[in-house]
């Protein structure tokens, strides 16, 4: 079995290319981060401004959802190669998580 790694030394060109791609990706991450900070600011500002709860709650939940997607897909590379099973199980987990929360907020007190 392929336990042992074969060392593959990349050519200079390959190496430079990969390095450049990584640097680009890193810039992408910075942008992602900026968006996350922005979303957080929006959420806090809305609450501080004291709009109606019916307006705020769905919006801040949505913002939280977006942040999570950013974390998972950009910082944690969930769409990357070899993440098929990973994504599958994370979605299953989120599904169970969702129905658990749904149940406990709807049918515990009546």
């Amino acid at each position, binding site marked *: 079995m392929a336990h042992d790694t074969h060392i593959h030394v990349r050519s200079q060109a390959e190496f430079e290319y990969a390095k450049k791609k*990584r640097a680009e990706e890193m810039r992408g991450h910075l942008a992602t981060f900026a968006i996350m900070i922005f979303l*957080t600011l929006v*959420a*806090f500002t809305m609450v501080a401004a004291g709009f109606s*709860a019916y307006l705020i709650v769905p919006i801040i939940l949505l913002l939280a959802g977006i942040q999570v997607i950013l974390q998972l897909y950009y910082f944690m590379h969930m769409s990357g190669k070899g993440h098929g099973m990973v994504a599958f*199980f994370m979605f*299953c987990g989120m599904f169970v998580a969702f129905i658990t929360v749904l149940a*406990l*907020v709807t049918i515990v007190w009546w």
Partner: protein
Amino acid sequence: MDINQRYTPQSWPEHPETATMEGKNKFIGFWLLLAAETVTFASLFATYLALKDKGPSGMEFSAAGLFELPLVFAMTMILLTSSLTSVYAMYHMKNHNFKAMQAWLGITVLLGATFLGLEIYEFNHYVHLGFGYTNSAFSSAFYTLVGTHGAHVLFGLSWFIALMLRNAKRGLNMYNAPKFYLASLYWHFIDVVWVFIFTVVYLMGVIG
């Protein structure tokens, strides 16, 4: 796999975290653990939501009256930033730049520790107000949810520190690269959970 195998940035593979069978296994296994953690936190959130503001008759504390946003805002910013710094660390890991990686990890740890310090301060503050763990169902649920997150932060910090110390002399190799990678995944996951905590517990709590 030879642990003493030396690498140069050029012989360092593109995805060191999954370059070996062990790495691949750890990688999948760890993500599966995160899926389980998702359900764990969902159970905690669900319970918190069910018990929010519930207590014995005449309970004086409610979410709306208790939480203070400025502190939470600071904590949020710190934790978000630490997520970015750990991304920098991984960037350098992939470049096989051990020193830079350690440095960014160090910053991440400092930020994480600050976050934890603020959380301890916050809890302490509430307890002094009289909002103790046994105060009400609400307080039990609140401290358990946020405290479990705090425990995760603590564990993440210890993990980073252990990895940094353990490998300080060895540098990066195929044996520890997956470990660094997973620790940073864990750190992002902690951030994900916090996003929900500040939204669901604090922001929605303040709204009432």
